[in-house]
């Protein structure tokens, strides 16, 4: 197990981390920071599949979700730390022809 990273934080500003292996619910997982991003520890509320994301902080509905130090979309509901973050609780703000112009403009 030594040296094996289980989860990664790409940028210090990020509010989500990425699983580098399948992580079970209830695990207290160590998140390794890249570059100057700090290492963290967090307890998972749900199982996280390889390559999927989980919240590091409390994300309010409508808040920007940050990865790579930039917004990757917004939360569609409140997301607690340790919860799985994916298409069921965040959405893109780009290329949204389904939204009214004022709402869809990024």
């Amino acid at each position, binding site marked *: 197990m030594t040296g094996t990273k289980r989860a990664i934080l790409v940028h210090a500003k990020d509010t989500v981390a990425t699983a580098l292996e399948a992580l079970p619910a209830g695990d207290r997982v160590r998140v390794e920071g890249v570059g100057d991003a700090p290492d963290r520890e967090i307890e998972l509320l749900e199982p996280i599949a390889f390559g999927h994301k989980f919240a590091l902080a409390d994300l309010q509905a409508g808040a920007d979700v940050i990865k790579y130090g*930039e917004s990757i979309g917004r939360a569609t509901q409140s997301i607690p730390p340790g919860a799985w973050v994916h298409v069921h609780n965040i959405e893109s703000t780009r290329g949204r022809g389904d939204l009214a112009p004022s709402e869809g403009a990024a």
Partner: protein
Amino acid sequence: MGFQGFVRETGVGVRNHVAIIPAVGCVNEVVLRIASNVRGALPMLHHQGCAQLGPDLRTVTRVLSGIARNANVAGVLVISLGCESVRAEDIVKAVEGRKPVALIRVQTAGGVTKAVAEGIERAQEMALSGDAAREEASIAKLVVGVKCGASDTTSGLASNVAVGYAVDRIVDEGGTVIFGETTELMGAEDVVVRRAASPEIAKTILRHIQAMEERAKSMGVDMRGSQPTPGNIAGGLSTIEEKSLGAVVKSGTRPIVGALEYGEAPDGKGLYFMDSPGRELEFLTGLAACGCQIILFSTGVGAIQGFSLVPVIKVTGNRDTACRLAEHIDVDVSSILRGEETLEAAGERLVSEVIRVASGAEVRSEKLGYDTRGVNSGIYVKGPVL
């Protein structure tokens, strides 16, 4: 740093193919029959060339001329029906006097049977005369395309990062690199603006991104499921913004010195952007038309595509993909995520692979004979078919 290539007037080739180019999709069958009878001849099939508006016809002509000029092409046979909108002689003119080229019009030849017979003869002559030896050439003579496809979250964390490292190295050696996939810059605009060599270049790229987004929005639906694709979403990518920010990493960190139209040849050295969709058929064809002799292709869940004319080096940061799709993967960099290899070491392995392949080593897709029938090429057009 150098490689062993075929020195031609249009650049240094890493392969020695005869390209059979249809001026219009109507003659694809003729092109296919000729190519299947001549070893080393490749059919560059597409579905364009007629009943289209001016800008699209210019794009088709630019792309087909670019493929004819590609340094991996030793000889060119253009097949025309005779009544199409694209002017076949424009494609001939792009290389005339610089490499062997011939034009056959099916209506003039007297039909498919005669055109095929004449075409086989012409293509065979070119295949026999194109028997050149490789010579030492500088890496500055390379034009390398970069692409990511069937991405997952490992793409942005490992394979694209390693490709970006290799891109920086190639640019620093005086070479040229082309990236594109306009859709996959949505959400990564800040990165583009920061790295554009001039405000004009930044403005041009932003205009292309905006135009792509407007066209997507004009369909009146949510883009998700199209970009990111269902495969991307299964792999953990939630939004186009996340995909874009992970994708742009593969263009490295050097200044973007130019913004090219789809299939346009760069006018100098360094890193260029090409306006293009992310879909493989049209994007790989566009890179070939720009003059790329090699393509570095990063994948997560496992893109299988090669490209007939241009060797495609497939790179993954997903260990499972590297094992399950071993026959398609040339370089596995999942070691970066496991903490077993530094990014620099993995990136250097990629640079070595580029030089090895440029000097003649076959990539996996070539060994598999992927796309010797030319069905994996296509031209990106924006207007209606009339």
